[in-house]
């Protein structure tokens, strides 16, 4: 049974249909890539599912619960983690404190005014940072990090709550190709080990084709194709809107210039 079910989702900004009647499903243990050219409505879709934007119409259910109309913080507590296109972390906290904060928030310990939180869940936070390769920098202020590292901290924060669904809007932007593969590889491992469901966007096509279980393609707000990597690669409509210049994907292991 699918964990996330998006049906007939619409979002209008004035006369512009940013997301136009989009439907798809995502089951636990699956890595679903959402791809499409710039302006296709990818980030808007993420923000609708995550509750950061109100939808115009449609329905999004998570394990049977309707998400539309629910406050984004409540969606987070249902077990949905997310990362943003422009990484959002807490600049004045250290790397470890960022993750500790995520753990505190998830365990609803925010309204505690007395006991020090300096060491609270620190070991757990370090463990999470270790998984994303950031343990070495645990005590640096988050404001000093390179952008790729900020993205990794953000990933550690979004998986801190043990989410059943992870929404990742361009998780590897600003990273070198080798790092990208490593990070998405890590996410893939979480998917298989924890049975987590992941919806992600990614501009690097070799990453998408190498790791995604399934791919959906958006163009101008509409869902134009859905299927496995092979099916998407061959899909005539995808080739038409997405690779209109006549370029197709040949070799893998190289940067795809799709953006």
């Amino acid at each position, binding site marked *: 049974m699918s964990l996330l079910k998006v049906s007939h989702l619409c979002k209008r900004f004035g006369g512009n249909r940013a997301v136009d009647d989009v439907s798809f499903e995502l089951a636990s243990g699956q890595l679903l890539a959402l791809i499409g050219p710039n302006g296709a409505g990818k980030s808007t879709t993420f923000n609708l599912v995550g509750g950061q934007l109100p939808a115009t119409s449609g329905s999004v259910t998570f394990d049977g619960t309707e998400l539309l109309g629910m406050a984004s*913080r409540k969606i987070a507590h249902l077990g949905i983690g997310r990362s943003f296109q422009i990484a959002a972390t807490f600049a004045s906290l250290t790397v470890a404190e960022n993750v500790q904060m995520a753990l505190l928030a998830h365990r609803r310990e925010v309204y*505690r005014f007395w006991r020090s*939180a300096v060491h609270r869940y620190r070991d757990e936070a370090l463990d999470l940072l270790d998984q994303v390769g950031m343990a070495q920098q645990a005590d640096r202020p988050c404001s000093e990090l390179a952008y790729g590292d900020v993205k990794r901290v953000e990933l550690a924060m979004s998986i801190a709550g043990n989410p059943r669904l992870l929404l990742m809007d361009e998780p590897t932007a600003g990273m070198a190709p080798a790092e990208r593969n490593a990070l998405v590889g890590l996410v893939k491992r979480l998917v298989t080990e924890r049975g987590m469901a992941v919806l992600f966007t990614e501009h690097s096509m070799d990453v998408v084709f190498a790791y995604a279980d399934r791919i959906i393609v958006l163009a101008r707000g509409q869902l134009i194709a859905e299927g496995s990597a092979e099916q998407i690669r061959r899909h005539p409509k995808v080739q038409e809107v997405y690779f209109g210049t006549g370029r197709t994907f040949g070799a893998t292991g190289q940067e795809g210039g799709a953006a």
Partner: protein
Amino acid sequence: MELTGFIVQFLNGLAEASSLFLVAAGLSLIFGVTRIVNFAHGSLYMLGIYVAYSIVQAWGQTPPGFWASLLAAALVVGLLGAVIEIALLRRIYKAPEMFQLLATFALVLVFNDFALWLWGPDDLLGPLAPGLNGSIQIFDRYLPVYDLALMAIGPAVLLVLWLALTRTRWGTLIRAATQDREMLGALGVNQAWLFTGVFALGAFLAGLGGAVQIPRQPASLMLDLSVIGDAFVVVVVGGMGSIPGAYLAALIIAQLKALCVALGIVELFGVSIAFPKLTMVVEFIFMALVLVFRPWGLLGKPMAPQRYTGEPDAPLRPATAPFKWLAFLLVAGFAALPLLSGTLPYASVLAQDMLVAVLFAVSLHFMMGLGGMPSFGHAAYFGIGAYGAALALKSAGLGMLGSIVAAPLAAGVAAIVFGWFCVRLTGVYLAMLTLAFAQIVWSIVYQWDDVTGGSNGIVGVWPASWLEGDAYYYFTLAVVALVIVMVRRMAFSPFGYALRALRDSPLRADALGIHVKAVQWTAFIIAGTLAGLAGALYVFSKGSTSPEVITVGKSVDGLVMVLLGGIQTLFGPVVGAATFVGLQDYFVGITEYWRAVFGVVILLIVLVFPQGIAGYFKQLAQRVGGPA
């Protein structure tokens, strides 16, 4: 009331709207382009009146000479604006928003004393305008002809500004800069001269707004802060950076005030409402309503986020052992002061004031520094604490300790109500709404004679006999030290982490499941409650309280203390408040122009220690002790 009264008040309102618009238009332009909240704008208005007064004495005998004098006065103030921009503001555009505010507030102090030095302390009433000194009859009432001229000036300036902004290259640049000044810079526009030009124009308009008041209003040293409050309201209601918005807002506010005067005392459902009493506060009530329903003002748009907003705060570290020793020594030092009463009889009196100020500053820092919620109206909670304690003691008979417990609770209840509205907004808009609520509180306290004693306040509020004199000093010291320890603990508690986290990124905090507004609201309430406690301690140390404790000036004092000490450190407000009280006391002792000296010191601190005093020493310690 008859219809004719309404008509005359309506015309009067139109004339008032013109004056308000001139000041507010300049403020709005300056904010739109430079993003500086220019506290000194009221001072420029005040200087406009004074300068016009002097020039009119020489040239003002003929109608052309009179109007040339007003224009010349505005030009002088415009030139002063250019000088301010080049000499001061240009150095601090990249400083945090609140620091720029501090710098412009220092200018308020300097200009006020400058006017005192040059023109003396008495109000100066200028001559009537030659040729326009009569009045016209409207039914059975009279309206000065000069008011008719004033009515025309506002729309005329609006038209000229609107044409300049929409039809000229310079205007296009200004509108572009209002939307995104970094992008404009990236396109190769020399921002420096654009900013100078805008600041000079804004100052010119403020000066003009003052100058045209010459026949109606005496030049007075009180004008700077009273005008800036009105101008802020107009700008915020109209929408920051919107010139037509400023006129619309000026018109509505002037008419609301006129309506309150015209209505007089009205019996409504058996309750008599004295509308004229509302004139002092109706603009703030209106602003609060506008901000709640249209957070960007009537004709304003959401502002583009600034890309460069200064260095992010360094992570807070729990106190180290040397720091704890330092704090202990400090408390011990304060505790020793009464023992020195033989040689330094005044020391413990000053220290008492410092302690109250420290508590006030710490409470403000809690919401402003840790929570990123600046307040221009924190004095409201201090005042409610002071009055709450006084009333609890004198009217409710709660006794001293009961009063000291009840007062912060009263302030906390006020913070619950006001905070609920305030946390919906951010940044300058939030600060303005706090100001509005503070003004509302001030106006109630000032005018509710039966309960608060009106402008006289409440006297005879002394501590119980077992806590008199030194005992009360030690009591204050203990309470303040305890609260500081408590606030420090809170800063490192899960709540404190959440507060700092959502200041950095509300988006991320929300995505982690933190109820951002609720956490901010809670912090607002805690800050208000602690300020109320400071007010209660204050009233028992002075024996009295007056509406003075709720004025804008008092709120700004708190801001200055926090920024002086350094907003990024937990110890900053303590150092800042003590320095503030100490310096003020010292300067008052040595010169009549202590405000100016104080202003210059603040300017030096802004330019030399942009991280505040405690922030500077922290950085120094880190440099000496190697990289942290």
